[in-house]
């Protein structure tokens, strides 16, 4: 009986000590994870700022014209028209509005 009581008390003490130690260990673990989270958030923000700068319309327009040789459509080259729903000319373009772009093909120089 005494042995059982002793074992029970010892177990409780050990459980208490283990619990305290584990709390401290988890505390350190949480702090490590928090620090990691902060670093990842910082990286995310840095990438977000970079992405936002890289997708700036001014930059895209500059790249389109300088690198790809694209240009603004001339007056009247892009016409947006409403397609009547009862007579869709093209089933894919049946919904709402469709854009028609016409290229001004430059005259060929002989």
């Amino acid at each position, binding site marked *: 009986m005494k042995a059982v009581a002793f074992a029970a008390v010892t177990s409780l003490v050990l459980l208490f000590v283990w619990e305290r130690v584990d709390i401290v260990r988890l505390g350190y673990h949480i702090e490590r994870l928090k620090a990691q989270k902060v670093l990842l958030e910082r990286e995310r923000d840095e990438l977000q700022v970079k992405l936002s700068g890289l997708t700036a319309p001014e930059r895209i327009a500059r790249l389109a014209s300088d690198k790809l040789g694209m240009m603004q459509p001339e007056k009247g080259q892009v016409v947006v028209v409403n397609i009547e729903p009862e007579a869709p000319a093209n089933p894919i373009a049946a919904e709402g509005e469709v*854009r028609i772009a016409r290229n001004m093909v430059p*005259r060929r120089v002989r």
Partner: protein
Amino acid sequence: MAGAPLRGRRIVVACGLVLAFVLVIVRLVNLQVMQAAALTVKADRQHQKNVTLEGARGTIYDRNSKVLAMNMDVPSVFGVPASLGNPVAAARNLSPILHVKATELEKKLKQERHFVWLARKLDPEQGRRLERLGLEGVGVVMEGRRFYPKGPLLSHVLGFAGMDDRGLEGVELRYDQYLRGEKRAVVLQRDALGRAVFPKGLNEEGAAAGHSLTLTIDEVIQYIAEKELDEAVSRANAKSGTLIAMDPKTGAVLAMAVSPRFDPNTVGALAPDRWRNRALTDTYEPGSTMKSVIAAAALEEKVMTPGSMIYGENGQLAIANTVIHDHERAGWMTFAQMIQKSSNIGAAKVGMALGEWRVYDYLKEFGFGDKTGIDLPGEIAGLLRGPRQWGKRSLASISMGQEVGVTPLQMVTAVSAIANGGVLMKPYVVSEIRNAKGQLVAQTMPQAKRRVISADTARTLTTLLEGVVTGGTGGKAAIPGFRVAGKTGTAQKVDPRTGKYSSTLLVGSFLGYVPAEDPRLAMIVVIDEPRGEGWGGVVAAPVFRRVGEQVLNYLGVAVDEPVKLAMATVES
């Protein structure tokens, strides 16, 4: 007999133990009860650390959730001169990374201080290079820095935040209380080495970031507006330019551009004049664009119909010892032709037919002389004096857009009322405020101030303003495939040297909306002090066309009149 000394020893040991326990208990009572309060404070000071956390400043998005301004933690570098072995070598190593002269750094590092800032809020890459350098006596702390990733785009509206993360201009200033991050004091537990273990309450969260704002501005429309305005200002060699694009049905501002622009990332060296949002802080005399408002009053009051005849006095009309001129000498003309040709004499006569008080009341109704109430700082009310303060020529002058000071924002708000069928809307730039968790905190709904003219009057006036573009002074604002309604304006500025109207200092403007039948875009273009030909129809109307064409295309607005398509021809 041997039991007696044994018992004596037992008693001695027992007494010793009891005494020892008593001493322990006394000490315990002394520590736990008598000195409890003082010792608790001392212990807390050793293993607790009070830290004030400040959440990041909120992000600003455009109407399509594109980031326009956001905070990021960046490195700030400090030195501990006492821990530095060789300040000269340290300064030499730090100089190329911090972009600060080595002599300056050396001076700082030789100071007899425990802590000295070397450089603040650097780029993350500079921080990484410093880490690789691993200098003893040089440390890095992270601080929040405001970034405007699109550079100068929308700078006059966004404004900027200062080094201490407080808004100083524009939306940053007006919505500072929402954007500012939460400040929270947190208690951290420290171990024997001084490392943070965890806050007292495990569930305690860090300080929340500030609210985020969603603007009504569209970054693509803003880009188109800025690009075309900058080009026009540069082409005309003008002092400055302003362009506002608005959704006339809601009052939502789609773009607000001021030229020249500035980069809010590097605002430190600029004069305050560069970041002033002239669209709402500066007044100008609108000139003939004001005739659209006078015409609205005349039609609404049934003083005029489109067919009413007005005599043009062959281009000269004497009023109060002065002479009003028209650039085209005209005889009899209809009210519609008066608008189309922008006759000053016709406008003066219409004003006189309305009378002083009706002209004043309508200008007031259209919002002149009062702030529009836009959610941006620094707006002024403009200048509109009451009829009692008017001189003999004032009625005629005001009817043709002189003797009255307006902001470009007031003008575009007024023309939006004509465009949307007669209702004056309150302009706004912030549509939504959300907290750090993304929950909606506030939402701005379109706000109608009052009806200023009937829908019938607005429709009739639209037809007259279309005439300005199809056969009048605003021909260069015409957009193929769309019916454009608008009015040109060319106002003389007062020469500060002579105090009189100058013949060379002009303000050219164009005010209009498109498509005329169901407007999606109301816009004003103001070019201040263009050199050479300064007519509104020459310097401002083409900007309206170029911006309008691109924006309608971007918004996917269908044409509202037949278009002649240019067919391609290929010669073999």
